[in-house]
């Protein structure tokens, strides 16, 4: 695995966007994307947890391989993600109560965000080294923010338009995601 880190970043951000191409982290994508500002804050929090997770998953993996117990990886990742989310929550609460209030319930919910678990699993199965892991985490986070911002921008406009009542809510959100996903397929030619 000698893919340059920049390529990994672009790949995770655009070509294999976590939300629109790999269907990871759809719950916050559909749930938090009604207002642009909340969407951006959510994206930042997720990116930060992704970075933490990526570093800890890398270290856990070294440890587990050293003691010859790779089958424990999934359980360890989950525990580490849960505790790092808890840690982030405590730090934000202590140093910036305003941001803490703005993020609200979404912060603890990051624990069950599949994008984060998938990040740990992917970087292990692809055998990334430390720098590549960081690039991967940053790229995925940037991709997540991008998808969330695009979606929330569209949904803010959508509130003003006249949608057929049976299409309102999740149905129209899914249709829009489909169109966005098709647009992102245009990036597929950039890889390899």
């Amino acid at each position, binding site marked *: 695995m000698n893919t340059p880190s920049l390529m990994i970043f672009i790949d995770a951000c655009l070509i294999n966007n976590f939300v629109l191409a790999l269907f990871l982290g759809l719950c916050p994508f559909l749930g938090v994307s009604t207002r642009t500002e909340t969407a951006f804050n959510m994206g930042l929090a997720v990116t930060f947890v992704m970075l933490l997770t990526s570093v800890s998953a890398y270290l856990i993996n070294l440890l587990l391989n050293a003691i010859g117990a790779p*089958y424990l990886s999934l359980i360890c990742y989950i525990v580490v993600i849960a505790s790092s989310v808890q840690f982030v929550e405590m730090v934000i609460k202590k140093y910036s109560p305003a941001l803490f209030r703005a993020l609200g319930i979404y912060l603890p919910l990051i624990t069950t965000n599949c994008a984060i678990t998938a990040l740990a*699993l992917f970087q292990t199965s692809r055998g990334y080294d430390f720098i590549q892991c960081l690039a991967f985490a940053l790229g995925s986070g940037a991709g997540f923010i991008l998808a969330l911002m695009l979606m929330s921008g569209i949904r803010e406009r959508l509130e003003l338009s006249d949608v057929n009542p049976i299409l309102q809510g999740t149905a129209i959100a899914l249709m829009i*995601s489909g169109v966005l996903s098709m647009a992102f397929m245009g990036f597929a030619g950039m890889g390899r």
Partner: protein
Amino acid sequence: MANDTATATPDIAIAATSARDENLEALTRGIWRENPVFVMLLGNCPTLAVTNSVINSLAMGLATTFVLVMSCMIVAMIRDFVPKEVRIACYILVIATFVTIVDYLLQAISFDVHRALGAFISLIVVNCIILGRAEAFASKNSVLKSSLDALGFGIGFTLACLFMGVVREVIGAGSFAGIPLFGPDFAGWSIMILPGGAFFVLGSWLLLFNWLAARRKRRPA
């Protein structure tokens, strides 16, 4: 979900017949009326990601059902011993254990399907349906009732995956579970197999159900 946990009365107080009714109710509720995917919109990620063929959808549904039933059974068994503060962490550990078992089992049974599903087997661990049922139902109800409830929701999830998988494979590849349906001249709509198609198909199913519900409301009885 708050409603059904609130109405669940202690087992002792219920007469034998109504207990059976309640068990049946626990089983059937998840299949259609509170279908996790179409009605409650939980666990969307695997429903969209792996349903590009019928076989994959079925495998994903069955794997999730197994994890759901086993985890809810264990959670219901240990519900009296787990301190309230650390319950979520305990549930996650139980779920992660069964997901690891399923991961290795599937690898042994069919390596091809395992490769097609990829990371999504491991990702069952963060499927909100499982943690949701463990927290909302299994942590407050008897082992039998929790297992039935889990089985119902598992079947509901499998059905939803099949709904998606059948539409996407028949339109996208012109085949059903690998068997060609329309002869060699059929040009599949490849968009249905690609990520965009998944969003469209789920959106269309929701559209159909909304339409049916709206029609039923307009014409009562």
